[in-house]
């Protein structure tokens, strides 16, 4: 795996005549302290679940034609949806074989687990211990896991930022990576299985929360275009989020884009009325009034 440690070891292995300074220079260049490692490069198994489902084993994309791969892939999806670590095998069997009795379901799970390991071309990818199944995070990279870790890290950094003056550029890089990772709902729009809903909603909720925080951070850093982008992305996910309308309108006003602010207000009125049967909040109305008065 292409971890920073392995990169250092390979640099050391190729080093001639103890050219240690060059080695250190190169390693500093390559690993100049990213705040958080988010890259999917070098992982033997890469699983993409945000906005789609796709899988790469040893850099080769896996296709899913035919029934032979369906159950193993369903097992992988269910495992990730239930947290990916120490998931009770009985629970997985109940989801995948709801009509089978306990023993039959258990046997089917064993067979499917074996087939999944074979498809992943890695015996260690799935760990079964004491009746619990885990996806091995030492050889599997999952976009949703990276997004969640990054989101947690970013939120705590943004909270600290109020107290300490961290480097804004680092935060912007992290925020851009996190917002890019979330490409859509867990397993995409085509999947409506009940076992996927809780995790899908959790990720969606985290993404919206992150957009709010990142937007606020951009506003406080006078990066109004970036803030606007975050709020408008929020409205793409959910057109009923009043705070996103309010903050986006405020950004348009600060950027002296009056017409855009008015159009957004009209969109807000129309969506809230059509879908919830309500009018915009007092804050949004105040903003709109200030636009008319200006």
């Amino acid at each position, binding site marked *: 795996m292409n971890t920073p440690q392995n990169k250092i070891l390979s640099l050391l292995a190729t080093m001639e005549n103890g050219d240690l300074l060059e080695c250190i220079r190169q390693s500093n260049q390559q690993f100049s302290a990213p705040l958080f490692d988010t890259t999917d490069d070098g992982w033997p198994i890469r699983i993409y679940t945000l906005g789609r489902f796709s899988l790469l084993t040893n850099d080769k994309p896996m296709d899913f034609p035919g029934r032979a791969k369906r159950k193993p892939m369903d097992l992988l999806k269910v495992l990730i949806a239930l947290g990916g670590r120490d998931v009770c095998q009985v629970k997985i069997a109940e989801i995948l074989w709801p009509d089978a009795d306990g023993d039959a379901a258990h046997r089917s799970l064993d067979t499917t687990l074996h087939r999944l390991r074979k498809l992943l071309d890695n015996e260690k990818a799935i760990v079964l211990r004491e009746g619990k199944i885990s996806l091995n995070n030492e050889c599997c990279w999952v976009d949703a896991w990276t997004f969640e870790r990054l989101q947690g890290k970013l939120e705590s950094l943004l909270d600290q930022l109020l107290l300490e003056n961290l480097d804004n550029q680092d935060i912007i890089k992290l925020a851009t990576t996190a917002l890019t990772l979330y490409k859509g709902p867990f397993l995409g729009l085509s999947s*409506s299985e*009940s076992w996927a*809903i*809780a995790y899908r*909603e959790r990720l969606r*909720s985290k993404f*919206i929360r992150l957009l709010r925080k990142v937007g606020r951070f951009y506003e406080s850093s006078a990066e109004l275009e970036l803030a606007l982008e975050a709020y408008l992305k929020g409205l793409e996910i*959910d057109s*009923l*989020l*009043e705070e996103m309308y309010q903050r986006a309108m405020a950004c348009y006003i600060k950027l002296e884009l009056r017409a855009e602010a008015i159009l957004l207000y009209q969109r807000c009125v129309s969506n809230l009325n059509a*879908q*919830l*049967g*309500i009018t915009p*909040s007092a804050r949004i109305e105040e903003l709109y009034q200030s636009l008319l008065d200006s």
Partner: protein
Amino acid sequence: MESYIVRIYRQDITNPHNMAGIVVKASDDTETRFTSSGELIDLLSQLEETSFQPHRPLSAHMN
């Protein structure tokens, strides 16, 4: 089994029963709106009669 998602978009601080939101049917994304806790309860009761399995909780979500 059908699954539903409850999204609450607005709630009155002084009167928490006043709220606005939607219930989304997961299989086809159809939405039904509610404007109070009473309406939400009525809506959920109707859905329960038609398709709910009572031992499975709803995925509740507050935006």
